[in-house]
């Protein structure tokens, strides 16, 4: 009963915030709505006892990706008129996507209505079952190669991102901290000895 109530409450928030992402005029508000929708989908995952995925969703998307997103969106000065110009021209693509998604969801719902086993809700798990442990178990045994490949791919992406920002522009003034630390008083300071001038 409580679980059902929570499910509908979270779903309502999720749908409202997802609508907010695409309808709000201000891009920062849209980004914040996206944060809320990530959060509520994490809550929905918690309801189906997938706590590892839920926490990782918050950790990765809310905690890292969306912070950087907001960072950029807040700095940008987006001209809304400019963005909305192509709306009618690209509308058919949007409608096509919507139709495809609606068709797929309806397919799943109808299949469940027909009582096909593959789409039934998962059985409740015993209280001592650890979702986190189970994922670790298969990730490091059965799927160890795909896992390692994904890790290598991410590493390559990191290296690429760093090299993109490492380009040297001409005339760029950068502090060399090693040189700063290594300076001594003699390099910067010259003590002159001179006689006091005679009083006239």
């Amino acid at each position, binding site marked *: 009963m409580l679980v059902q109530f929570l499910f509908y409450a979270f779903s309502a928030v999720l749908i409202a915030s997802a609508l907010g992402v695409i309808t709000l005029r201000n891009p920062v508000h849209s980004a914040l709505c996206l*944060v809320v929708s990530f959060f509520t989908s994490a809550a929905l995952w918690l309801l189906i006892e997938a706590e590892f995925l839920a*926490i990782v969703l918050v*950790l990765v998307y809310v905690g890292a990706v969306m912070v950087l997103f907001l960072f950029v969106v807040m700095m940008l000065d987006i001209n809304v008129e400019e963005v909305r110009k192509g709306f009618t021209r690209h509308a058919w693509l949007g409608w096509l996507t919507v139709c495809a998604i609606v068709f797929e969801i309806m397919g799943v719902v109808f299949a469940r209505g027909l009582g096909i086993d593959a789409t039934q809700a998962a059985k409740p798990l015993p209280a001592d079952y650890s979702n986190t442990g189970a994922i670790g178990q298969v990730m490091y045994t059965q799927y160890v190669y795909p896992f390692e490949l994904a890790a290598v791919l991410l590493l390559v992406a990191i290296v690429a991102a760093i090299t993109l920002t490492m380009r040297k522009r001409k005339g760029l003034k950068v502090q060399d*901290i090693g040189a700063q630390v290594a300076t001594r008083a003699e390099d910067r300071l010259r003590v002159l000895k001179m006689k006091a001038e005679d009083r006239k």
Partner: protein
Amino acid sequence: MQQISTLWNALPDFVHSLAFILAVTIVLLVSVALLTLWERKLIGWMQVRRGPNRVAIFGLLPGIGQPFADVVKLLLKEVVIPAQSNKVLFRIAPAIALIPAFATWAVVPLAPNLSIANVDAGLLYVLSLTSVGVYGVIIAGWASNSKYAFLGAMRSAAQIVAYEIAMGFALVGVLMAAGSLNLGKIVEAQQGLFGWNWTWLFPLFVVYFISGVAETNRAPFDVAEGESEIVAGFHVEYSGIAFALFFLAEYANMILVAALTAVFFWGGWLSPLDGFLAPDNALFQVPVLGLLLGNGLHWLAAKIFFFLCVFLWLRATFPRYRYDQIMRLGWKVLIPVTIVWIAVEGLMVYFKIGPWSA
């Protein structure tokens, strides 16, 4: 008495948990109030001043009433909402800053087998909630529609994102040592004073604590509110109780980081005598002393108090870092240290050195 306890046991489970949560929250709020006083007193003594010494309660303990007088003052002040600000977000931001600081306490083990929630992915929960706290700062800075506030928010966001990585890597070492993400099991895996994680993971402990100081935007990493450059940073437009909520969030976060450092590296509620006295030693049979020497909440509290004093000590002694130096320390010093030590720890585990020899 008998009736009260039977009545209490008859209540449903969620009432018990709610009462527990309420108790933890109230203790935290009072500790935050006392911490602000202790900060001013301790830094005062370090700088050969007296600190607050006017507001006494019943003429005793001069200064002890100061935080409560401050709260009353802040409650009575007007909350000014800037005309050009984003009103809704401006009001929500302090709450968003505050909630994660308290919600994280749900998984902190307070005493043997005692925590609000015994979550298997507790460590991940801690990481994800501490990373949510940054939204309060960003939203406050943006919604204020003020250059100083926005600059403070940008600085703070970049800093928190950078130090979170070092923090996460340091915790990877902890979970390798404990073999579990459950905070209770992480505490139990640490055996004896010199078997606590701080000995074998000493570099990770140092990195974790430094990152914790940076995450809470405390001196010497408090460029987010650097008074000399950007007035007060992200909360420059906040007044009265709205400002007090940010203040509360900062101090609650300090207590949280101190508690997490104690749990991850200093054995949480474990007694330091754990490895030296056998559990059946006669000393533990002495009525009060035995309880004090044994494991329990008081040891966690003592460790938290110690780390809070280190926080204040840092603030009293160090000048503020320059912004690029903060970034350099985070990315080029702390993260490489953690990566190297995780590799070293992996080798120690593989060759069964130290605590992994058994």
